[in-house]
C-alpha cells in the first residue's frame, strides 16, 4: 500500500510539474469557467434578485464543464510519444496510475475552483453569508467524487478516437446523484437553512465517493489491461 501511494505521488508530481511549466490546461480551464459565467449572465439577468437561487447550481455547472476539459487532457496527453504504454509496462501497480491521476486532477480542479467561485460571487454580486468551513467541506467532498469517477472514465474514453465527445456522455449520467447532493447541500449552506439537512446530503456524497473510489480503484486494472 505504501509503495502504491509513493508511486501515485510520483505520477501526480510529474503531471503537476508538467502543468506548472506549461500552465496550458489550468489557464484554459479558468478562462473557460469565466466564459461560462459570462454566458450565464446573459441567460439569467444578474441584477435580478431571484438569480441568487441559481448560484449553487452555477457553482457546479462551472466546476463540471471546466473539469471536463482537464479530465480529457489527463489521459490524452499521455498518448503523445506513447507514454501511456510506458506507464503500463512500468513495474508499478496499475492502481497507482489511477491514484496519481486522481490526485493531479484534484489539485488542478481545486485551484480552478478557488479562482472561479470567487469570480462567480464577484460578478453576480453575491454576498457570502454561509458557514465557510461547511461550504468548503461540501465543495471538496463533491469535487473528490467528481474527479474519481471522471478520471476513471477519462481513462476509459481515452481508448476511443472521439474521446472528447465520449467522456461527457459517459460521465454526466453517472454524476447525477452526486450533483443532486452537491447542489442541495450548497444551497442549504448558502441560504443558512439548517446544517443538519446539509449533513445528511454530505453523508450521501461521502458514501458515493467511497463506493466509487473502491470500485474504480479495483476496476482500473482491467482498464489498463484492456487497452
Amino acid at each position, binding site marked *: 500500500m505504501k509503495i502504491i501511494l509513493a508511486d501515485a505521488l510520483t505520477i501526480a508530481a510529474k503531471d503537476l510539474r508538467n502543468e506548472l511549466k506549461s500552465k496550458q490546461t489550468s489557464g484554459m480551464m479558468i478562462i473557460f469557467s469565466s466564459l461560462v459565467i459570462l454566458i450565464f449572465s446573459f441567460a439569467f439577468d444578474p441584477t435580478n434578485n431571484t438569480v441568487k437561487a441559481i448560484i449553487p447550481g452555477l457553482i457546479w455547472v462551472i466546476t463540471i464543464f471546466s473539469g471536463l476539459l482537464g479530465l480529457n487532457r489527463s489521459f490524452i496527453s499521455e498518448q503523445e510519444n506513447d507514454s501511456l504504454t510506458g506507464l503500463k509496462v512500468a513495474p508499478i501497480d496499475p492502481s497507482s496510475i489511477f491514484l496519481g491521476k486522481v490526485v493531479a486532477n484534484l489539485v488542478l480542479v481545486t485551484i480552478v475552483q478557488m479562482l472561479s467561485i470567487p469570480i462567480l460571487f464577484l460578478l453576480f454580486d453575491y454576498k457570502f453569508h454561509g458557514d465557510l468551513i461547511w461550504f468548503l467541506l461540501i465543495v471538496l467532498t463533491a469535487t473528490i467524487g467528481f474527479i474519481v469517477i471522471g478520471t476513471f472514465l477519462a481513462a*476509459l474514453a481515452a*481508448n*476511443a478516437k472521439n474521446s472528447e465527445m*465520449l467522456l461527457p456522455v*459517459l460521465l454526466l449520467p453517472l454524476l*447525477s*446523484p452526486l450533483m443532486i447532493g452537491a447542489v442541495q447541500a450548497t444551497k442549504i449552506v448558502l441560504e443558512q437553512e439548517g446544517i443538519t439537512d446539509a449533513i445528511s446530503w454530505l453523508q450521501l456524497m461521502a458514501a458515493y465517493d467511497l463506493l466509487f473510489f473502491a*470500485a474504480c480503484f479495483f476496476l482500473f486494472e482491467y482498464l489498463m489491461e484492456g487497452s
Partner: protein
Amino acid sequence: MKQPSAFVDRMLYILLVPAMFVSLYLIFIWSPIEKQMGASQKIFYFHVSTAWVAFLAFFVVGYYCVLMLKRPTEDRFIKAGISAEIGVVFTTITLLTGMIWGKSAWNTWWTWEPRLVTVLILLFIYIAYLFVRKMEGTWEKIAKLSAVFGIIGCINVPIVFMAIRWWNTKLHPVVFGEGKNQSGGGVEPDMLVTLLFCIGTITLLYLFMMRKGIEIEKMRLTVRKAKSRVIEKLAS
C-alpha cells in the same frame, strides 16, 4: 447442436403469439375499467411490464459484465450487448407510455419524481454503454472496457434512485416500501391477474428477442470472419 436451440425458439414463438393476444384481450375487454382514470388506465399494464423488463435487461447486462471481467468470451460479450439494446427499446417504451399516462392522469407530460428520473438516467446509461461498445478496436479490448462501464453503471442506478427520493421528499429519508402518497390501496384482483399475465408476456417477448438478437449477432460474426478469410485468401 442446432436442433434443441431451434426447438426452444419455436416453443417460445408458439407460446408468445397466443400470449400476446390473450393479454390484449385481458387488458381491453376482460379487466374492469378504472373508476377515476377511465380507459386511459389500460396503458398501465404495458407501462409496468415494459418497466420491469427494462430493469431486468439492465441486471442481465450487469450480470454478464461481471462474468466478462472474470473471463471474457465472445458469447457473454454478445449477450450483454443484445440485452442492452433491448433494454434501450423497453426503457424508451416505458418513458413514452408513462408520459402518455401522466398527461391524462396528472395533466402533465413529466414530473421530477424519483422513478421517472431514475428511468431516464437508466436510459442514458444504457446509451452510454452502447457508445462504449461502438469503439474501435478488438472485441477483447472493448469487452473489458464495456464490462467495467457496465458494472459502474449498475452500481449507480440504486444511488440515483435514493438521491432523487431524498431530493424530492425534501430530505425526510423515506423508508423502503410505499411512500406517503403512494399507499392508496392496492390493485383490484382482476387487474392484478391481467398485470401479472402482461408481465409474463412481455418477459417472454424479451427472452424471444434476446435469443433472436444473439442469433443474428452470431451470424454477423460468422459472415465477418468468412469475409476476412476470403480477403486474406485473395490477398495472398
